[in-house]
């Protein structure tokens, strides 16, 4: 193919009707806080693991709601708790991550 210096990226459209959100639902049972996240991204901005694995709790929660595999992001988490300290919604993010690690299959 001719190289035009740009390319079309794969569609990232999410068909919410077909998405499997059981994991997110199970997480919400363990940590109801997961629903009150407003995706501000403070957690991602302060994340220690962010520069290494791209970890950001915002992305993890969004990914779960879209049925995506968030394991690569999550695997870098060092539980340092910066996200908990900055969360404007007061979500206990460390506990949420631990719960997620517990129920992930």
């Amino acid at each position, binding site marked *: 193919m001719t190289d035009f210096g740009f390319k079309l990226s794969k569609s990232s459209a999410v068909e919410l009707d077909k998405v499997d959100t059981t994991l997110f639902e199970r997480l919400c049972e363990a940590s109801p*806080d997961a629903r009150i996240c407003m995706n501000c991204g403070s957690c991602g901005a*302060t994340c*220690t*693991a*962010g*520069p*290494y*694995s791209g970890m950001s709790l915002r992305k993890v929660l969004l990914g779960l709601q879209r049925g995506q595999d968030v*394991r690569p992001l*999550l*695997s*870098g*988490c*060092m*539980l*340092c*708790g*910066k996200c*908990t*300290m*900055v*969360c404007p919604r*007061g979500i*206990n993010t*460390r*506990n949420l991550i*631990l719960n*997620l*690690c*517990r*129920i*992930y*299959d």
Partner: protein
Amino acid sequence: MIDRVASGFHPFVIPFVAGMVFVLGYCFIGIFRILLQLPAEDRKRFFISLVTPKTILKNIRDIFCDCLFHVKLWKRNRLLGYMHSSIAFGWFMLIVLGHIEVILFLPHRIRLFYYPIFFNFFVAEADSTIQGSLLFFLMDFFLLIILSGIALAMYKRIRSRIFGMRRTARPSLMNRIGLYSLWAIFPLRLLAESFTAHISGGSFLTIPANWVFRQFLGNDLNLLPTWWAYSIVLDVFMVVLPFSRYMHIPAEMMLIPLRNAGIRVRNARKGFAKVQVLSCPNCGVCIDACPMSVDKANIKDCTVYLTRQLRRKNERRIEEISDKCLLCGKCEAVCQVGVEGPALRIQLRSERKYALSPDYSCIPDPPPAESAGEGKVLYYAGCMSRLVPSVGRSVESVFRKAGIAYEWIDRDGGVCCGRPMYLAGRLEEAEAIVRKNEAQILGYGVGTLVVSCPICYKMFKEKYDLPGIRIVHYIDYMQELLDAGRLKASRSDLCYVYHDPCELGRGMGIYEEPRRLLGRIAAITESPKNRNESICCGGSLGSLTLSFAKREKMTRAALENLYDGKADAIATACPLCLATFSRYADRPVRDIAEIVDAQTVGTITKTEAI
């Protein structure tokens, strides 16, 4: 003193003998089981310590000071100390003196181990000797001491405040039975010995009592029932003992040698931890100490309830209690027997299974070690520097002023020290972070590592293997710079109150150094609860389930303690305390690094600097 009962036996001793056999058998099997549960290496260490003269002496000293004289309780509150030592030491002396009486007067009966306990029943006064009356006097004296202790114990149940305790643990049913039978033992002993005093002889307590009783009870019919009652109450106490808090009496005698042998908690349910759990006397000193118990909240999550639930094997509550704790270590600092609440909780957390484990291969390996780093200082600010960058900037500024050649390893973000992961009980994962970080640090080839966060400092000191690298907190490093004359300090006009961070104070035992450093540049005052009783700021990463909303009260309570006095500002040496306090404090909160930076100038010229 002559033998009164020819057979040397009376049926009323049976309950006592049964109780004694039961409790001794229980403890003996318990010791055996616990020794089996210890890891082989710990067991070996324990046996070696039992034949090392130095530890033998230490064991004997500790057992006498802690179990009999309750020295730690005396230091905490004299009345509380008197109450415990009067009962423990008094009872011990009654048993010892009872044996001496038997050895001196009825040596052929020494094999009957109930004789020293019921001595007065089995003897009749003959030509009384001076020795005999002295012993009887001592027996009555110690009985009086114990009775005074029991009276205090009864009063303590109504008003614990005069004993320096605001809240005490609610006694469970078994504890109540044990408590009431313990209270009954000594008055019954007094009664029994008093009724017998005209036969066996007695002293200042029993003889007058005997005289009073004989005024309206003309016969000896009440003699046997009281001895029976005394024996039965002893039996009840000893049968209940293994299932109540009174198990701490034998357990503590096992805990002290194990601790002195240097054994640590490696499993929350077995071995050393089991001894700790059994050693908890349920006194509830940890309830008042716990920073979570502000406004009577979370009382049931204190260490005293953890040990209780561990004994009951109530898994749901065990998980709740172990996850909620801030791991500030204050319960351990105030504990009279040395139950390691935080260590137990970390081990309990480590029992959890996680389906997903982290993988830190995404963290790149550092370039190979370069020798250029020798003589340089490596600064590790820790991940809190992302939230409070002023600490890192101040440390850097001090380095510059003092002309120190340094590298800042995590200026643009770095690897966590691993302690938060460790506190969450994921020990292997923490180990993985530690190994990653070690490689990063060794890559710089430096000789000194300066750390500004006490949480990281504790982790580096305890879990890292960094050969040839001196790990130092900036408190010590800045002190050295001032001592060496590389910095010149001026005094600040502000008066600071110093808050001891948990991990630096109780965690690493560093109390004086920050005060000395701060004292060189500013006036300092002390808060009512300081040093090892300092109150956690509430920001601790130890807790897994406490939300930030619930922590606010704890932070405010910790601040109240610091407001006491004439301080203009609060100083601390932990970026986490700094961030947490800054949120609610009504006066400035500063890290000591910031204060040092503001109050010092460099003394060396640019050319001298490396």
